[in-house]
Structures are given as structure tokens and as C-alpha cells.
């Protein structure tokens, strides 16, 4: 095979990936209303609630701890520089801006991606291998509506909630640092936080977290549905799901940040 053919082949594979992702996204989007309580099919929203518990609630300790740690790291790193200018208070601003815009959504997405993208692809991959997906189709039930859509809804609701909580954890880590290093009181700290926090930044972070949530659940489902053959294929799919979703999250982070920057929405003051 010539080099040109290899490049073409690789491009076709990537394009097929993108195409499959888009197709699946549409089919799920059309089915989402069926999952909602009252307007949707009866009982279906309950499975969405179950998914919220597994995707969202159980990721809480992990996301919280990761944010607490990275908040502390950020405080330590920025303090060593800011101290030279005698502006240790600015640590508050650094942490608030970094967490609302960037770290909160990213740390949450990475922790959920590690836990749930693999879990989703393993669950759906197993359903493919044990013919449960076929069974649904044969029974006249749409697997998209039945297994995929509740996961999407759950991720879209819980990941932004987790993002808010982990942003709070990160900012709280900043307080811990400042309380120890310069005896700052909680009152003063949160006053400074309120000064530095902008609604625009919070909204920006939440938009990002919605994008990340979509990526996680989307890649997890697609990799799961692609499983062919025996149980060992499920293992491959979980690895692929985590690797791809992590990579796509970083890529999407860059994309959204660049858009916000270019539109001039991210300048402070």
C-alpha cells in the first residue's frame, strides 16, 4: 500500500467515525422527549433516574476529591509566583477564574469519563454480545430509546451539577490554602470570591460541561454498539471509549475556549 493510500484509508476511517457519531446523535436527540416524565413513555424516566445515580451521584466523591486536590495545587503553584509581587490575595482570583471557566468542567469531565465512558461501553457492549440489543429490536423496542437515551439525559443533567460542585470544591481548596498561609477568614475569602466570580464565566463553564457530557456518553455508547464477537471485544471497547472520550474532551475544551476567546467573551474587567 502506498503512503497516499494509507493516508486516504486513515481519513476514511476517521470520517466514518465522525459520521457514525453524528447519526447516533440525531437518532438519540429525536428520542429524548420520550424519556421525560409526563410527556414521555410511561416508566421510561425511571431508568433515566437510575442512570443519574450511576453516572452522576457515584462520581461525586471522585470528582470532589480531584477538584479539591487540583484547587490546592493551583493555589500552591500560583502563590509561589504571586508572593514575589506581594500579591498573595490574587490567588483568589486565579482560582476562581480558573475553576469556573476551565478546571471545574475539565476535572469533572475527566473523572466522569474515566468512570462512566468505560462503564457505559462495557454495559452496552455486553448487551450486544449477549444479544440483548437484538432481543430489544426483535421485540419491537427501539434500543436507542430504551438503553441509549436515558444515559444521555442522565449525563446531560448530572455532569453540569457535578461541575458546579467540583468548582465549589476547588474554590474551597483555595480557602484552605489561604487560611493556613495568611490566616484569611472564610468571610473575607468568600467576599473576594464573590468579587472575582462572573456570571458569564459560570455560564461558560456550564456550556463546556454540557459539551463534555455529550462526548462522554456519546463515545461510550458508540464504542459499546460497535462490539463484535466475544467478551474480549468488550474489553477493547472500554479502553477505546476512555481513550477517545478523554482525547475528545481536551479537543472540545480547546475548541470552545478558542471560540469564546475569539468572540471576545473571555476578557476580564
Amino acid at each position, binding site marked *: 500500500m502506498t503512503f497516499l493510500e494509507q493516508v486516504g484509508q486513515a481519513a476514511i476511517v476517521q470520517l466514518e467515525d465522525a459520521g457514525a457519531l453524528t447519526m447516533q446523535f440525531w437518532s438519540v436527540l429525536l428520542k429524548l422527549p420520550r424519556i421525560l416524565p409526563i410527556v414521555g*413513555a410511561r*416508566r421510561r424516566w425511571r431508568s433515566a433516574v*437510575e442512570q443519574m445515580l450511576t453516572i452522576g451521584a457515584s462520581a461525586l466523591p471522585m470528582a470532589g476529591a480531584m477538584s479539591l486536590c487540583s484547587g490546592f495545587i493551583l493555589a500552591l503553584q500560583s502563590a509561589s509566583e504571586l508572593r514575589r509581587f506581594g500579591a498573595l490575595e490574587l490567588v483568589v482570583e486565579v482560582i476562581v477564574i480558573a475553576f469556573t471557566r476551565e478546571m471545574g468542567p475539565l476535572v469533572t469531565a475527566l473523572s466522569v469519563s474515566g468512570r462512566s465512558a468505560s462503564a457505559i461501553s462495557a454495559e452496552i457492549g455486553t448487551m450486544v454480545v*449477549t*444479544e*440483548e440489543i*437484538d*432481543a430489544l*429490536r*426483535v*421485540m*419491537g*423496542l427501539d434500543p436507542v430509546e430504551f438503553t441509549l437515551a436515558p444515559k444521555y439525559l442522565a449525563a446531560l443533567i448530572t455532569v453540569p451539577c457535578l461541575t458546579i460542585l467540583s468548582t465549589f470544591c476547588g474554590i474551597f481548596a483555595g480557602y484552605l490554602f489561604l487560611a493556613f498561609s495568611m490566616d484569611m477568614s472564610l468571610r473575607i475569602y468568600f467576599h473576594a470570591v464573590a468579587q472575582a466570580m462572573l456570571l458569564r464565566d459560570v455560564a461558560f463553564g456550564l456550556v463546556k460541561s454540557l459539551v463534555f457530557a455529550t462526548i462522554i456518553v456519546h463515545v461510550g455508547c458508540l464504542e459499546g454498539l460497535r462490539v463484535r464477537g466475544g467478551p474480549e471485544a468488550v474489553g477493547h471497547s472500554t479502553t477505546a471509549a476512555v481513550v477517545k472520550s478523554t482525547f475528545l474532551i481536551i479537543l472540545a475544551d480547546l475548541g470552545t475556549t478558542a471560540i469564546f476567546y475569539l468572540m471576545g467573551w473571555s476578557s476580564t474587567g
Partner: protein
Amino acid sequence: MTTPSAAKAGDAVISIRGVSMSYGGRRVLDRVDLDVCRGEILVLLGGSGSGKTTLLKHVLGLAKPEAGSIAINGVDITRCSQSELSAVRRRIGVAFQGGALFNSMSVEDNVALPLRELTRLADSTIKLVVWMNLMAVGLADAGSLYPPELSGGMRKRAGVARAMALDPEILILDEPSAGLDPIVSAELDQLILFLKRSFGVTILVVTHELESAFHIADRVAMLYQGRLIAVDKKEQFAGHAHPRIRQFLDRQPDAMPRVAAEEFIASYLRGSNT
């Protein structure tokens, strides 16, 4: 034996005409013609890789053939719309190889699922139907268990109960006795015969287990390398002269690789001598 639908016996419920399929240049199904008549048990025999699973997927409308047609109750499922396909599927119950039960639901909920999703029956009625179906397969006291807690045979029977939930005309069973011990396998055969006797369903069984095949079948069909090499009443089938069928029935190993190897060595030696 008289079945409720014996009067109508003879007309084809499933009729497969000239179905061909290939994956990556390899012919998996080659112009398969097969009729499954009302009220009979047809057993589709075949070794691994003979194409029987692929044929089954086509009959269920999970895959579309390259050529040919499959009519179920007169509706060609290879060309019909999605809604027609759904209507046809409502009349078919399928028990998959491993049961394909949903692990997150109890056995009862698994059997109730098609009733809850596809009918407007009241909860009390659904409960009764579920109980009757579990009773029929001998799992009446296992309803609250979850699939991972069941043995292989129980899982298959639960799969049959779910397949029977909507009272189908056609029941399709994929490898009902694979991986089961002889006693459990015999119980499943009993169950299949019982379902045919008492509900008059048409049953298509895909298997490679000879003993159970000849025990339950009215007619036996055999697939080999994607081709249907024989369809016959089971009495005639047992005396069939086709070498592949003889080999299959007499459980003879495949001699071909050894012959090929000997020929290769012989020609190699001839070549090195000259």
C-alpha cells in the same frame, strides 16, 4: 397428534426464497429456499459456520439479504417498511441462545417487558400473564430472581417464557440445548413439544444437537457452507444418503484436511525427486 391449527397445516408461515448473503467476499448463504409450515416444528441443523445464525438473523429482519426474499405471513420483510416489520415481529417470539435476558431486571420484569411496552394491559393482567408463562416453563417460583442468579437452563427457559409473552404465532429458538446437560436439555425438548401441543405455535429451532433435533422435529433441514442440502421429514432425513449428512449424523470427523495434507506432501516429494 392434533393441534388447534392442524386444519390449516401445509401453508407456509415463513417462506424463504433464494436468499444469498456474503461477508467480505465469502458466501455465507447461497440461494437458500425454505418453508416453515403452520403448526410444525422445523429444526435447522448445521455445524459451526454453516450460516444458520446468519439465516436466523435474516428471518428476524436484523440483517438484509443481498438477494432473495423472506415472507412471513405473506409480508416480505426484506422490502417492507419499518412499521410493517414491527407488526410482523409482534407475531414472532424469539428465544436467544443465552436467553438474552436483561440483567438489570428480575425474571418477572423481563417477561413482563414486552407486555408493558407493547400492550395496554392493566398491571394485574400483566402479572397474571407473566405468572402463567413462567408456570408453563417451570419457573413459577423463580420470578423474583435476577438473571445472573439463574443456571444456564433456567435462563433459557426464562427466555422462552419471554418469547411466549405476547402469545406469538411463530416461536424461534436459537440453540435451545447448547451447553446444557442431557437432563436439562431433555426438559427443554419436553417444553418445546408442550408449547407446540398446547398453543399450536409454529416453531423454528436452530441447533447442532442431533439427539434433541430428532426428538422434537417434524421436519429437519440441513445447512452446509451456506447451502441448504436437505429438507425432509425426520424419518426420511435419518436415512439420507448425502455424504455431508451421513458424516454429520454418524459424527465422523472432517477427513478433508488430512487428505489435503497427504496430497500436498506427495506432490512435494514428487517435485523434489524430479
